[in-house]
């Protein structure tokens, strides 16, 4: 490879016409892997191995019995067992945790994206009194540490009789998801030329009809990315979710902590529950994989 590149470089010097085509090839190569390293793949591979090892260990443990986990050390299960998973799927205390988590995460995603859409449109299209301050104030809520809000939330929601309901957790998670959704959607909306709005109004579209029929399909990927982020941050948050629930709406992640401290450390079941909490996230990432990169840049690269 190195010699080919050198030859190519020499040829580049000799003929200007060829140079264009070949420098393109070189440029593509440089972009892909850096100029001289042919071991470019080593870095992502090592990094992914580092990421996967702890997860593999959890999966490995989830297929072992407790005696095997504590008694012997092995890199893979010697007597694979599905017992740990059976415990979770047959005990309502375990699997209702999953249902609770999914209910409040879905509620939160719908509420956050729903209220963020018109607001993001306002920020991307109009100037209005105090717009910059309002936008910064929204962002500060994304920065607010949940630890600060745990206790006030508990009191606020008990005075409304909302404790231990799914909607309480969904509303509490709006604290950090709504600002994020507004931020992402604003980025995507600013990428849509304003002429489209104006043409639609001239054609006699009312604002709501234009927004739903024309504008939303144009930023569909942005809506998808915003929904993904709301799902993600609501799914992984535990402090608020645990503070606001006791039994009826307890999230799966909180069920796990309770079991760790109470029932004498059933490592196998703990590992199986952990593996099961990873699966919804993995599924969601797979579906949005083509938008992830843009979404992480909040649509504003």
């Amino acid at each position: 490879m190195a010699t080919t590149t050198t030859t190519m470089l020499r040829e580049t010097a000799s003929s200007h016409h060829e140079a264009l085509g070949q420098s393109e090839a070189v440029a593509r190569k440089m972009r892909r892997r850096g100029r001289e390293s042919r071991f470019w793949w080593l870095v992502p591979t090592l990094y992914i191995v580092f990421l996967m090892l702890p997860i593999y260990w959890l999966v490995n443990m989830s297929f072992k019995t407790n005696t095997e986990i504590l008694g012997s050390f092995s890199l893979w299960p010697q007597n694979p067992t599905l017992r740990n998973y059976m415990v979770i799927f047959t005990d309502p205390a375990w699997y209702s945790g999953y249902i609770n988590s999914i209910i409040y995460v879905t509620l939160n995603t719908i509420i956050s994206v729903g209220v963020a859409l018109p607001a993001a449109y306002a920020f991307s299209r109009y100037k209005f009194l105090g717009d910059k301050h309002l936008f910064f104030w929204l962002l500060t809520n994304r920065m607010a540490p949940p630890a600060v809000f745990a206790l006030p939330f508990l009191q606020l929601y008990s005075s409304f009789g909302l404790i231990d309901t799914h909607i309480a957790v969904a509303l509490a998670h709006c604290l950090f998801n709504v600002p994020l959704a507004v931020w992402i959607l604003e980025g995507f909306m600013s990428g849509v030329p304003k002429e489209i709005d104006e043409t639609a109004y001239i054609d006699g579209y009312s604002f709501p009809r234009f927004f739903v029929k024309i504008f939303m399909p144009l930023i569909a990927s942005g809506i998808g990315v915003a929904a993904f982020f709301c799902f993600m941050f609501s799914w992984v948050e535990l402090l608020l979710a645990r503070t606001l629930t006791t039994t009826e709406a307890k999230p799966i992640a909180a069920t796990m902590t309770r079991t760790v401290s109470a029932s004498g450390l059933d490592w196998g079941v703990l590992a199986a529950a952990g593996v099961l909490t990873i699966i919804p996230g993995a599924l969601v990432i797979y579906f949005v994989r083509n938008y992830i990169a843009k979404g992480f840049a909040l649509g504003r690269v």
Partner: protein
Amino acid sequence: MEKTYNNKAWFLVLPVLVLVAFSAVIPLMTVVNYSVQDTFGNNVFFWAGTEWFEQVLTSSRFHGALIRSLSFSLVILAIQIPLGIFVALNMPRKGIGVPICLVLMALPLLIPWNVVGTIWQVFGRGDIGLLGYTLRTLGISYNYATDPWHAWITVVVMDVWHWTSLVVLLCYAGLVSIPDAYYQAAKIDGASRWSVFRYIQLPKMNRVLLIAVLLRFMDSFMIYTEPFVVTGGGPGSATNFLSIDLVKMAIGQFDLGPAAAMSIVYFLIILALSWVFYTVMTNYDTANR
């Protein structure tokens, strides 16, 4: 884009305003309320003025937690930002490798935070964890439950494992937006690998890097769940970060006054720092428009 001035836009913002007012302003006012009052129980409160603030600002417990949180955030930024850029530069740009890398790298981001804690708690244990067992076999005495340094290293490595992918994905998004023509121009000028990075790739990543620094600083500064699961703030108070200390004070000991005053100070620090980041970011935007 040229924006029109129209105050009716406020109506579009109204739903967000109402919702965030409910979930942010009311709780925040409750905190402010507690921070200036004292109680002997039974919901009887009386004015305490700035007493709690003085107590918090002069207590060595708060100083310790603040220093621990700040140094944790700095260590995290110093490791994750360069590592993230380095991995992003070496990512494949087309072919089957792209979705595989993206999905696998994003995976830790989607794991519930206490499960992240559990994974590392188990992984680092000397008797049943791969990492702990391997280190022990190699003759290194490693125990994150008793040695403060080991606890720190474990928490830092855990956070690097958990969040570096965010930096990678952000930088990657910046890198793929660079047109081929830039590389060709660099090639014709005979630019070295370093100058390509310094004068083409780094400037193009500026915006996303700012977002990365902002998000990583904020989230590491308010980290709670993961170290709480792994170390519980210990050994001693070695990993007792600000939010862990706060929750211990507010919910564990029910010291509402000091906890509220500490919340406000904590929130003001974050507010001041976000304002700096936000100003830098928006100034950068207007300068480049």
